[in-house]
């Protein structure tokens, strides 16, 4: 399924980040993507299943959640090291990264959600 990913800030996730960015709470609240109900149904994605999100820049496994509100074609992710796997490293003249409009595809996966440590290992590999 093709979507545009828009990142956002969530207060519970911000709180978890303040307290411990290596903690399980922070991962649980960060490694998620919120999908439109009918989009998810069409793609056969259930609430709570792991999904692989891929952009031109990178890929990351997160858990899928179905939004209460409708937003076909859009998927929302809390801003975090997980969403940052997808943000293009290439920027335009402004040198401001495009954090809030990322083209991506989403598919169901059996792969595990990476921990912060996994993401760090990836960075230095």
């Amino acid at each position: 399924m093709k979507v545009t990913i828009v990142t956002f800030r969530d207060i519970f996730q911000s709180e978890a980040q303040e307290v411990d960015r290596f903690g399980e709470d922070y991962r649980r609240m960060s490694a998620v993507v919120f999908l439109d109900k009918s989009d998810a149904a069409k793609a056969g994605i259930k609430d709570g299943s792991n999904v692989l999100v891929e952009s031109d820049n990178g890929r990351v496994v997160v858990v899928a959640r179905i939004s209460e509100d409708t937003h076909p074609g859009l998927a929302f992710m809390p801003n975090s090291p997980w969403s940052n796997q997808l943000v293009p490293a290439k920027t335009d003249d402004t040198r401001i990264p495009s954090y809030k409009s990322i083209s991506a595809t989403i598919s169901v996966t059996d792969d595990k959600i990476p921990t912060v440590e996994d993401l760090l290992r990836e960075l230095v590999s």
Partner: protein
Amino acid sequence: MAVCTGCSLLCDDIEVSIDGRRITKTKNLCRKGFGRYRSLASDRSVPRVDGRQAGIEEAISRAAEMLRNAKRPLLFGWSCSTLEAQRKGIELARRTKAIIDDTSSICQGEIMDMVIRKDIPTCTLDDVRNYGDTLIFWGCDPSSSHPRHMSRFSYFPRGEKLQRGHEEDRTAFLIDIRTSPTAKILAGNFIQISPGGDADLIEAMLAVLDGKIPRVRDKKAMISMMNRLKKADMGVIFPGLGLAYSLKGRMDRMKALVDRLNETTRYNVIPMVGHYNMRGFNQLLFDETGFINRVSFADGVDHGPVYSVVEASKSCDLALVVGSDPISSLPAGIAKALAGVPMITLDPHRTLTTELSRVVIPTALSGIEAGGSALRMDGVRIEFDPIVKSEYPSDEEVLSKILEEI
């Protein structure tokens, strides 16, 4: 009364009960601010040099040595430090002929530049509370990012001219992509746009102001909003990250709209700065160099996109990171470049950046363990004293020592 450094509202009405070094009870802190106070006791960073534990003194000396030997250092972060520490940081950048940049470079820099240069009118949040009768939250979700914004200043409180508060005296519009928690409160005045739709919306608003028919689906709603906006005694626009990213490179369109609105009545702009003292850094650097961010001291003062953290992460040979976690907040591809550079990091907490740093210097949490001053999102200076004793030095103290040793 204590001050919260959880966001750029710098709430200064916080009541705290303390037992030794432990915080036992707080009043008036929002959930986010309470998280910051709680972090006093969680996951603090430890001093490290070249991958092993060390004393703070040793870490400082090693940092000074690395900075002395660097040819093209990048000094980055700054938005979570006091004005006093930032001043030392700018001095250190001069002395080491470094590139200095802050987080505004990857978020609100463009609009903050206009505000600080006075290209766009602004006012204080106290003015908003007293006189701001028409508000536009644009590409932001204050309930989540600045939880007390609407209750302390912008929408709910009574003000000098606005005795009846939000029910009768104020109108607030929200422009955003997502039906955010703030959209739930302002449901009746929520203008939902699609990603990148901000520029078109501005053109439509300008068209109505010029008496033309706007090219939008709901013409009636647009015209009635513009009629309301024109009736403002004092209007205030709060641009957030949504606008910053959607309108990057075209922020002059925002200025065009604000200028046009100001032909009819008074409109001000206060960017929704995230970190507690980003505006402070931008103001200080501007006062010293004429630029708010992205400055190189390699040869006098130079400024430009090549000195942005995004570019400098790839070109520097050393990075000093102060109170920021760029490894977490930069796009992974750029974080990867930065991870390949030797890093010195000052932070109260363990972060992704400290994990990858050669030298880690733990510091006191400002507002709680260290005093100083900072500029609120509206430029008002807020001073604070430490409320608990700390075993850690402040950023300012560490930077002073590094300066001495260089």
